[in-house]
């Protein structure tokens, strides 16, 4: 089922949770709503689910106006961050709940319910756990029960509110991959909310970045990561180094590096800021580029992170650069070593906008 939002707005008292949101989710898409806490992503998800009513705008399901449909008519599966399993019911009863509350003429026979629940439990790799109670399961297992329960009623749309937020990183990683596989097998439309950019990039087809109740940017993960349209998105998706652009004699500089030729954004008097990702900094021999001193070296699995104090920069704001492990094995940077920096890529933003 395709979902479209048209001019959605919602106020909580004085606080505008979401404003003027337009979004199209095609059938079968897996979309991430990404943003910091308080950006309105959960409100938006709850509006789609029917748990909140928007103050303005429309929610369209397959082109039909569903804005005022009650939640139980929407055929959405909703998964909460804290699972919301019914703790007085066994795992089996939890998954069977949606089938058992159907009106009598739609309700499957007990035998059918049993086999369907069992196959769903197999699907989430919990075929053995039907008799257990939620309290006897681990966090990852509980979240899989919650997913099986949501899938039991054959929803057209699966909505997940920070589904892996309460799990530790190993389990989280596993469940992300599993969710992606499940989505590819079953072809429902999924929207999930997360504040974790890594998660959004790993799982989603499309990322919608939200900030202060508005959509900042919407696109495929690589596009949003590589071509952010605002400093906010640039900062939110991964690590960045920030450097002020200095203009001297009609030319623009980052430290001693002249960037006039390559910079699109004004070289004029307005203050600009350059955002550079750690892997876009090239660390070379001391003689070339911007002189800097290595102040810390941290090996993180396949990458090595260097903290660099560049000449003329405040000592408490070192730049972060990432190099590959292979390169590090060859060159062995050590603390105190003098190096030269170049920038492979950077992006300029007006300083005022960047402060947002």
């Amino acid at each position, binding site marked *: 089922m395709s979902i479209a939002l048209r001019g959605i707005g919602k106020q909580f008292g004085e606080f505008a949770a979401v404003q003027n949101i337009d979004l199209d989710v095609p059938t079968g898409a897996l979309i991430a709503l990404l943003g910091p806490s308080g950006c309105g992503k959960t409100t938006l998800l709850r509006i789609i*689910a029917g748990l909140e009513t928007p103050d303005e705008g429309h929610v369209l399901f397959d082109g039909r106006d569903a804005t005022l449909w009650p939640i139980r008519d929407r055929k959405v*599966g*909703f998964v909460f961050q804290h699972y919301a399993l019914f703790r007085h019911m066994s795992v089996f009863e939890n998954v069977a709940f949606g089938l058992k509350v159907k009106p009598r003429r739609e309700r499957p026979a007990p035998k059918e319910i049993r086999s369907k629940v069992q196959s769903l439990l197999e699907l989430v790799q919990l075929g053995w756990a039907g008799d257990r109670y939620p*309290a006897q399961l681990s966090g990852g297992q509980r979240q899989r029960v919650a997913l099986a329960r949501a899938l039991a*009623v054959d929803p057209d749309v699966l909505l997940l509110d920070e589904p892996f937020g309460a799990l530790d990183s190993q389990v989280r990683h596993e469940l992300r991959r599993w969710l992606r596989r499940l989505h590819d097998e079953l072809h429902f439309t999924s929207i999930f909310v997360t504040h974790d950019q890594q998660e959004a990039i790993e799982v989603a087809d499309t990322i919608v970045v939200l900030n202060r109740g508005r959509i900042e940017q919407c696109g495929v993960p690589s596009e949003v990561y590589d071509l952010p349209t605002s400093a906010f998105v640039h900062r939110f998706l991964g690590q960045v180094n920030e450097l002020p652009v200095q203009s001297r004699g009609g030319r623009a500089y980052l430290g001693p590096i002249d960037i006039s030729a390559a910079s699109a954004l004004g070289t004029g008097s307005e203050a600009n800021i350059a955002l550079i990702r750690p892997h876009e900094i090239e660390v070379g021999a001391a003689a070339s580029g911007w002189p800097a001193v290595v102040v810390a070296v941290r090996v993180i699995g396949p990458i090595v992170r260097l903290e660099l104090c560049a000449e003329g920069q405040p000592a408490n704001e070192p730049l972060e650069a990432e190099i590959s492990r292979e390169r590090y094995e060859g060159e062995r940077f050590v603390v105190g070593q003098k190096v030269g920096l170049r920038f492979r890529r950077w992006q300029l933003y007006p300083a005022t906008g960047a402060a947002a």
Partner: protein
Amino acid sequence: MAAAESRTAGRSPALARALLIAVALSFLGLFLVLPLLTVFVQALAKGVGAYAAAILDPTAWASVKLTLLVAAIAVPFNLVFGVVAAWAIAKFEFRGKSTLITLIDLPFAVSPVIAGLIFILLFGSHGWFGGYLKVHHIRVVFAVPGIVLATIFVTFPFIARELIPVMQAQGKDDEETALSLGATGWQTFWRVTLPNIRWGLMYGVLLCNARAMGEFGAVSVVSGHIRGLTNTMPLHVEILYNEYNYAAAFAVASLLALLALLTLAGKSFLEWRQPELRHAARQGRDRTRREIT
């Protein structure tokens, strides 16, 4: 020497524990067990025959029936009100919510005697509705309806007070999940909300029932003390006591105490009978613990 030190260090918490338990137990014995025992000892002081006679006395028996009737009306009424009020307060945001919470506590703050007087002022022969009631031959004050009203007023907060924190802690996730799975509001209430709150509810009912049966002040004002007609058990105990009929007074009192013990036993029995309930209770505790840490 280090060993000796560590031994004393190890002993002092044990000592403290023993001391604390001893203090708690002796308080319990002094203020709970001893009075309760006294009631039964006094009741049986003149032999089993006198005890049976005191209980089988028609006026005593009438007071037992009246007490049970009042509790049977007041408790379900406050049960419904308590669930509705706790639901409204815990799951919705609305204007005047804090006022409602304060109002629910009003019966705790007001002396029961004043609660009784309120109903005299409203429904007594010189009260606001007195004239109307007289014309239509409806007796409220000095009759069963007045006693029920006063009891409801006094026991108003028990169930709501017990449920509000439970429901607030549980949030709305479970209900919203049930709705998204296609359950109706009614199904959601019976299958999800009620099982989630049943422990708080049961405890609230227990407290409410105990108070409904034991209420003295408010009921005393509106009852009129008509023997065999408007005397509840606590009032009957007082009358017998004032007539120096100690054995009978304590006999009825022992019956009242027995009713209280029975409710407690009923709760324990339910817990013991249904392991799944025990399990749910344990989970509830785990959950609270998780939320605290």
